């Protein structure tokens, strides 16, 4: 029981397309074998994780350089996850020249391979928007969840090297979420409270995620009781659900495109206001402590969110370090519309191409205030900050205190 490779794929495996493509096909073949895939399928786009030099280290950089040197070239549209720094303005974020040099080499290795250095976890608003039903190979857990659930494209939770492998070959093994049967919901979450704003959708992601983690299997959740939701709220939910529950997909009745294909599964878990309050409180470790770091943009901010921040900051001055994290394409538009000028005049700092999760800021701050449930997890686990979670507008207000 192995995989059937077509002649082109066999040629890649034999080294006929260079050493990098051979290594890529070896990776995909091994993965496909583990997961019982019969064949490879073409992918329309790729999103690569493993970009921040902080995470890759010298070895990761060497690996990427070898793949570029070995003739690796992206065969489909391929975009990148956030880097460890703002590629253009890293000095303003207190990044060292040594780190900047290494990070630049990482980006160069990718661009040599024809990868587009979007450096964002929100490829779907930065030039890489898949179609319903399209097979893609995306890493970045929040984007995977968004692509599968909100768009109805099809991807597994790729890792860094496997996403790169898909880019260099144009294919991925046909298993997991590429198969209809694995996209069916297996459990209903009945939401009993009205959920509004990014921070509440983040708490919802945690409440559901922690319940999912306790189950023996990993069913696709089907949510009922949500009557309206914005793109921003969905992106926050996706990031949180993926972080706390490891989920690659969900259905939201009346909202997400595949939900109407299914009945709500009989097995139901209710999510009450008290579950939500508990989830919210459990993410906080810094309540009542003196705050020294504010950040919005996990996942990266949309243009609408940046416009809103500009309105809130107009004519005012921030008193603490305030990072506004977003993708380069969105930042350019914000510049053109005058939002960036207002925000920077208030003393807030844009951290484009990066974020508070992957930048090398371990131990640099003490207490972070954010609206993002995902940021809360990584801020404490990885960066050793205490965290406070608040509604978006109150996060901005905190920066002005």
């Amino acid at each position: 029981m192995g995989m059937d490779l077509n002649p082109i794929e066999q040629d890649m495996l034999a080294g006929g397309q260079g050493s990098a493509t051979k290594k890529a096909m070896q990776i995909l073949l091994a993965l496909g074998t583990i997961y019982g895939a019969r064949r490879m399928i073409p992918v329309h786009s790729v999103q690569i994780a493993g970009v921040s030099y902080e995470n890759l280290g010298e070895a990761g950089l060497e690996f990427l350089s070898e793949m570029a040197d070995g003739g690796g070239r992206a065969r489909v549209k391929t975009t990148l996850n956030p880097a460890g720094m703002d590629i253009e303005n890293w000095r303003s974020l207190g990044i060292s020249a040594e780190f900047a040099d290494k990070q630049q080499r990482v980006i160069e290795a990718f661009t040599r391979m024809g990868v587009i250095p979007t450096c964002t976890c929100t490829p779907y608003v930065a030039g890489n928007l898949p179609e319903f039903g399209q097979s893609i190979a995306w890493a970045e857990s929040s984007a995977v969840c968004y692509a599968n659930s909100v768009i109805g494209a099809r991807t597994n939770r790729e890792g860094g090297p496997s996403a790169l492998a898909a880019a260099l070959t144009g294919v991925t093994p046909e298993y997991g979420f590429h198969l209809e049967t694995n996209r069916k919901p297996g459990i209903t979450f009945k939401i009993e409270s009205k959920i509004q704003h990014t921070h509440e959708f983040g708490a919802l992601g945690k409440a559901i995620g922690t319940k999912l983690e306790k189950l023996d299997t990993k069913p696709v959740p089907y949510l009922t009781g949500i009557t309206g939701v914005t793109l921003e709220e969905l992106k926050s939910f996706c990031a949180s659900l993926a972080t706390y529950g490891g989920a690659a997909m969900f259905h939201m009745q009346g909202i997400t495109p595949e939900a109407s294909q299914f009945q709500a599964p009989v097995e139901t878990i209710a999510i009450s206001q008290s579950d939500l309050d508990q989830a919210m409180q459990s993410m906080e470790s810094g309540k009542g402590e003196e705050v020294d770091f504010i950040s919005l943009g996990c996942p990266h901010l949309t243009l609408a969110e940046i416009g809103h921040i500009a309105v809130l900051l107009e004519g005012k001055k921030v008193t603490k370090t305030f990072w506004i994290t977003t993708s380069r394409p969105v930042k350019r538009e914000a510049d053109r519309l005058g939002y960036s000028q207002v925000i920077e005049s208030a003393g807030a700092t844009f951290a484009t191409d990066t974020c508070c999760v992957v930048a090398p800021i371990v131990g640099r701050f003490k207490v972070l205030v954010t609206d993002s449930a995902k940021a809360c997890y990584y801020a404490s686990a990885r960066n050793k900050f205490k965290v406070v979670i608040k509604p978006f507008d109150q996060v901005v207000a905190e920066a002005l205190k």
Partner: protein
Amino acid sequence: MKTLQGRKIFGGQVQGLALVSSMGISFYGGVDPTTGVVVEKGHCLEGISVAGTVLIFPTGKGSTVGSYTLYRLKKAGLAPLAIINRDCEPITAVGCIISEIPCIDQVDINEIGPGMQIELDADAGMIHVLDIQSGQG
């Protein structure tokens, strides 16, 4: 000597001594990439180096950066000689592929005790186990 038949994840032929873990291993965060020592608090191999061993554990866990951690170990000469899993998951598999570390899975790892001499033919998915303690084959 007993022979176990498993599945090839990445090929190669090596021999070495078994380092056995009953717990899963997260290479990112759980193993120090500069020393090869297991650093995960409370791990059954905590404080022990995986370098040069035939590393045996049920399955991998943790961040996909773990694939790059295995690669770092290999480049530093600190990687395991080979990896044997009950079930190999993608992070470990990809780590072995990019680092060229022979790897076999789908074997009953309870058949292998710590310190046993292992001969691995990963292309054939074969593991020969010699219990050198008892001197028996």
